[in-house]
């Protein structure tokens, strides 16, 4: 019974959905404030969701019917499943096991592939353009993102998030060593979330909604929700990997979790408001010329320090 509660209510599905809608609203408000606007109402993401779900379902005749139903659902499901393995307010997540870091990283890659599939099989030129761009971007940002998330794990000599947090709780100063990786994680996460500077898959002016051009109503609602949940999962993952300190009491841990995630959300907002949309060549240049070498240096430093400590 307790397992079902954890799975579906807290910290599972319901909490994730509510928190992701809240974070989406906060993110939009922050962006707006920095642009000297007021931003939408706090309940706007909820209103959007309700409106989208109530719309007519339209699938182009030449598109793959089954995929239209499956792809948004798979994107959302992957992200929700990943949330179960991320520790939130204690070193233990809902289902901790050795190697859960890898599983989370894998699950969290799925939405990008779903975006590509959505665009490619939606029988629209704009869709295929957007989908191909999403995949191209993935080839660019995925490597530095994974490397930066694995660097702290290498230092901690553990593939489980619980092990990482145990290691850093014993040696808190080593968290500062991972600052470059933290920076890289913030920059490349924008690619995963398709935000500036990596938001060319959904850049409106030249290709409608890119990969989502033919997706309307319920399907787009799911994708939107998947994107919002992806934001929360990514933020929680970054908090768990780079800021893995937890107090003894779970309530305090929960508050600290909120603080950590909101802090990272503010950093995200700041970064994507102040950056320019890059096109594919520039994305590759940024990721492979600057991010990957920096991540490599971080990994080498971590390995050296590990050798010194152990």
């Amino acid at each position, binding site marked *: 019974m307790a397992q079902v509660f954890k799975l579906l209510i807290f910290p599972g599905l319901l909490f994730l959905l509510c928190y992701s809608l809240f974070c989406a609203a906060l993110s939009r408000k*922050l962006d*707006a*404030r*920095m*642009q*000297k*606007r*007021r931003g939408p109402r706090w309940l706007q993401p909820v209103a959007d969701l309700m409106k989208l779900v109530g719309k007519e379902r339209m699938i182009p005749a030449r598109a793959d019917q089954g995929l239209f139903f499956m792809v948004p659902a798979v994107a959302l499901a992957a992200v929700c499943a990943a949330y179960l393995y991320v520790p939130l307010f204690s070193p233990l997540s809902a289902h901790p096991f050795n190697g859960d870091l890898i599983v989370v990283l894998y699950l969290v890659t799925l939405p990008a592939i779903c975006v590509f599939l959505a665009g490619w099989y939606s029988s629209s030129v704009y869709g295929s353009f957007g989908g191909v761009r999403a995949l191209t971007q993935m080839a660019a940002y995925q490597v530095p993102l994974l490397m930066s998330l694995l660097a702290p794990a290498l230092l901690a000599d553990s593939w489980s998030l619980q092990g990482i947090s145990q290691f850093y709780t014993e040696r808190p100063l080593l968290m500062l060593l991972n600052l470059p990786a933290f920076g890289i994680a913030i920059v490349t996460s924008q690619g995963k979330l398709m935000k500036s500077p990596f938001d060319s898959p959904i850049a409106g002016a030249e290709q409608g909604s890119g990969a989502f051009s033919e997706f309307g109503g319920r399907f787009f609602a799911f994708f939107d929700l998947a994107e919002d949940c992806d934001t929360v999962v990514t933020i929680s993952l970054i908090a768990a990997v780079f800021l893995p300190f937890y107090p003894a009491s779970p309530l305090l841990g929960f508050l600290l979790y909120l603080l950590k995630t909101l802090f990272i959300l503010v950093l995200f907002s*700041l970064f994507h*408001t*102040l950056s320019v949309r890059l096109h594919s060549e520039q994305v590759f240049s940024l990721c492979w010329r600057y991010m990957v070498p920096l991540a490599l240096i971080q990994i080498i430093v971590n390995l050296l320090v590990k050798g010194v400590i152990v």
Partner: protein
Amino acid sequence: MRFKIGGLTGEAGKNLFSRSATVPYPREELHYPDGYRGRISFDPASCIGCRSCVDACPARAISIVNSVRAGESKFECHLNFGRCVYCGRCAEICPGGSLKMTAELTPPALSRKDMRTVL
């Protein structure tokens, strides 16, 4: 050439805590300067019925009608806000000063019929 990165950070940070540039109209009032060409106001007492405004109006939005109500004859100004372009020619040319442009806005109408008003 030396390049900068994140040139707008300072301004963005300041804007987080400052007043927004957008105004939640109509909850908050908008202020227009004095000479603003807004809604037209009509003073029937000073209208002499010369109909210069009707001739001057480029959009044929205005007409002066001599109406008799309760035994009293006076001039009425029929204005179609849908056609009015707010150019102000009528107010400029009116010899008696009965047509004036105010600095208020015209509220929206729900049907074309509502746009034909009697000032």
